Structure formats: C-alpha cells, structure tokens
C-alpha cells in the first residue's frame, strides 16, 4: 500500500482524501509533514505552537481538500504556504511577538542561519544548494529575515539598516532568480510530478 501510494500524484492523493481515505492523508503527511513542522518551528520558535498549527493545517486539508487546486501548484507549496501564512498571523500578533522575542533572547541570542542547510530532501540537496548559490549574501539575508523570521519587508529594512526600496529589490530579484534556477534545474517540476 505504502509503495503504491508513494507513486500517487498530489491530485490523486487529495481525491482519495476527499473520500476519507486516511492512508492518503498519512502519505501526504509522510511526504510533507517534516517540512511543514520545520517551517512552523522556524517561524514560531515554539514546539507546542508549531505542532498545533501543523495539526490544524493537515486537518483542514482533511476537511476541505477542495481548497487545493492541483492546477495551481504542488501540494508541498500549498501546505507550506498555508503553514507559513498561519504562522505569520501568529507571530504578528503583538502579544505573541513579545513572547517570541523573549524566547529568542534566551534561546537564540543571535541565530546564525545558513541557508544552504535549510533545503529539504537529501536526494535534491546538492541541486538545491547550487540553486541557492545564485543568491547574493544580501539577498539571502533579506529573504531569510522575511520568510523564516516572519518579518515584513519594512521590518527587514530596519533590521538591516537599509532603505525599504533596497530590501524590496533584493527580495524581488533574489526570489525570482531562485525560482528560475530551481525550474531550470528541474527541481520544482520534479515535485510537480510527484
């Protein structure tokens, strides 16, 4: 069963989920659960909150599978975008922000984040690393502060002591170049097939 489900497309799995097939949801979780949890942990920096949020996202997929449109992207992107959006909502709430900053001071005084270590799927790690090499250090830093630390671009500008326009430009140019490189490397299309 697992081997056959492992070859099923995202669309087929979601159709099976719509028919209340738990093994299909289990397969989706097997594929994307770690990435979803890792992202939630990275943004929220709170294990209990991250577990709660990821559980909520997978249960939402179980309850409303039609929200995923296979014609608009992969299930991986859909799930991570949902997790990220929800996590951002949480961290941008003022009280959560204060608590989070307090925890950061205690647990992560100055996180040294190496983007090259943040890629998923060992088999693709080298290709993905190569793709991230197209980013300049400034572009990487702006993207990681926005995406993984949950800051708005205006907050990123303050943190980096750079003009807002410069930060916007770095994120825009860097992200589009990253996307194009991943597509050229066949990495994103390979996920679309799975």
């Amino acid at each position, binding site marked *: 069963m*697992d*081997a*056959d489900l492992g070859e099923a*497309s995202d*669309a*087929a799995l979601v*159709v*099976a989920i*719509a*028919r*209340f097939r*738990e*093994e*299909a*949801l*289990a397969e989706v979780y097997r594929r994307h659960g*770690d990435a*979803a*949890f*890792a*992202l939630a942990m*990275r943004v929220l920096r709170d*294990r209990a909150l991250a*577990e709660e949020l990821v*559980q909520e996202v*997978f*249960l939402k997929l*179980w*309850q*409303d*599978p*039609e929200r995923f449109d296979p014609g*608009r992207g992969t299930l*991986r*992107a859909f799930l*991570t*975008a949902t997790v*990220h959006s929800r996590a951002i909502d949480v961290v941008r709430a003022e009280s959560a922000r204060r608590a989070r900053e307090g925890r950061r001071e205690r647990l992560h005084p100055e996180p040294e984040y190496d*983007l090259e*270590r943040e*890629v*998923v799927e060992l088999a693709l790690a080298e290709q993905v690393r190569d793709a991230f090499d197209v980013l300049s250090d400034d572009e990487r830093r702006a*993207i990681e502060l*926005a*995406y*993984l630390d*949950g*800051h*708005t*671009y205006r907050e990123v500008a303050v943190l980096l002591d750079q003009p807002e326009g410069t930060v*916007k430009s770095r*994120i*825009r140019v860097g*992200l*589009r170049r*990253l*996307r194009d490189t*991943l597509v050229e490397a066949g990495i*994103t299309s390979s*996920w679309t097939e799975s």
Partner: protein
Amino acid sequence: MDRELTRAELDELLPLFALDALDGEEREQVARYLARDDDARAEVESLREAVSFLPPRDVRAPASLWAGIESALDVPAGELTAPPLRLVAADVSTRPDAERGSRRGRRAVALLAAAAVVLAVVLGVQVVRQQDRIDDLAAEMHRDPLEQQAMAARGSPHAHVIALDAMHGVAGGEVVMLPDGTGYLMGKELPALASDGTYQLWAKVGAGDAARMVSLGVLGPKPGISAFRLTTPPSMFEVTSEPASGSDAPGANVVLRGEVA
C-alpha cells in the same frame, strides 16, 4: 496608503506577497489584484513553490504530531500504523531451511508451514482488499482534472448533493454544490442527442414573483461532467433538451429535474 497601486507596482510586490512580507493596505491591494489576475496568481504560486524548499531539513516532526492528527480525524482510524504487507511476506519467505533440520526441527517447520498457510490466506485477503483500494486510486489518477475536481467536491463533507430525477426513463443524475458557489453536474449517463440538439442546464433562483430560470450552460449532445458557478441559492435544477444553439429559456422537453432541499 491613500491611493490605488498601479499594475507595475503591484507586480513588483508579488515576491513580497509570496513571502508573506507585506502587511496592511499593500497586502490587501495585492490580494485583490491576485483575485482578478490569473497571471499574477500564477507568479505567486511559482514563487511559493521555490520558497517551499527553504524550511530546515534537519528538523523532524515529532511522532506525537501525527498521533494528534490521526486521533482528530472524523472517521474511525484505519490501519495506518500497521507494517507494510510486503514485510510480512518477506518474513514468510525467509524462514530457515526446513529440510536440513532435526525431527524436532521438522515439527517446528511443519508448524511454521501451517502458520505460513494461515498467514498466506490472511495475506491473500489483505492483498485483495489492498488491491481494491489501489485499483480505485489508479482509476482516480487516470480521471481528467475536471472529473477529479468533481469527485473531490462530491466527497467533501461540505458538499450539497442534489439528486436529479429522470423525466423520460433515462438515467438520473446529480448536482454537487460547494459553499463557494462552485457546482458540478454529474450526468454522464444521459443518452447522446442528435447533432442538432444539446442538453442545457438550468437553475431556478429567486422566490415568488421574482423566481426565474437561469441558464448555467449548454452541455452539448453527449455531456460528461460539467462545472458551473452559481452564487445565488437555487431552489431547483433542470436539464432540458434544446436546439444545438441553446435556448434563452427552458423548453418543454425536461430530461432531469431535482428540487433543492
């Protein structure tokens, strides 16, 4: 922000929207832009695809997370934690070589063989059940996207399924409606019409004197599954047989009809 952003400005903000790095009015304006522009939405989706590779890979979800999800599912739990069947089969096939054993060993082998037969029977049943599910899944994988969407909608707990009764002895059909107004007509069993005819789907909307029939689409002479949008609550659906060009109002030849409960 006290002005509407230009299209060029909105396009420049798409990568920031993909990272959830916008807030306030800028975020709202981009969201509205995406709702009306397919190209912009596709751009954001592709950028989100790229950033989906950013989460740290050295973090593993705790076992308690899946346990929590599984326990919260609103149907009885299945056999999600059972070992794969192929591992059971491997155990059977790698038994010690019985022919080289002692008498005691042969007895043990006989017991093992009997156990293997039982296992094989159980395994056979499991494999058949398993194959049924796989066949179903394989069939789903080969459906066209519209049929996949329709079947996914049909299985949604939020779907409203309206049975359509046959008026002239043909097979019935059904309409599946989702809360967002997306609907699907499942009428694959309708007999083919001549080339100068077409089926047409109608919905009755409004109440009292304001009630009227609105066309939801011309379906062609041999319809498959059809999708439509209807944001006004309907009280009835009809499928009629019409001239090939379709009609402004439903004719007398009603093929299917269903009242919305």
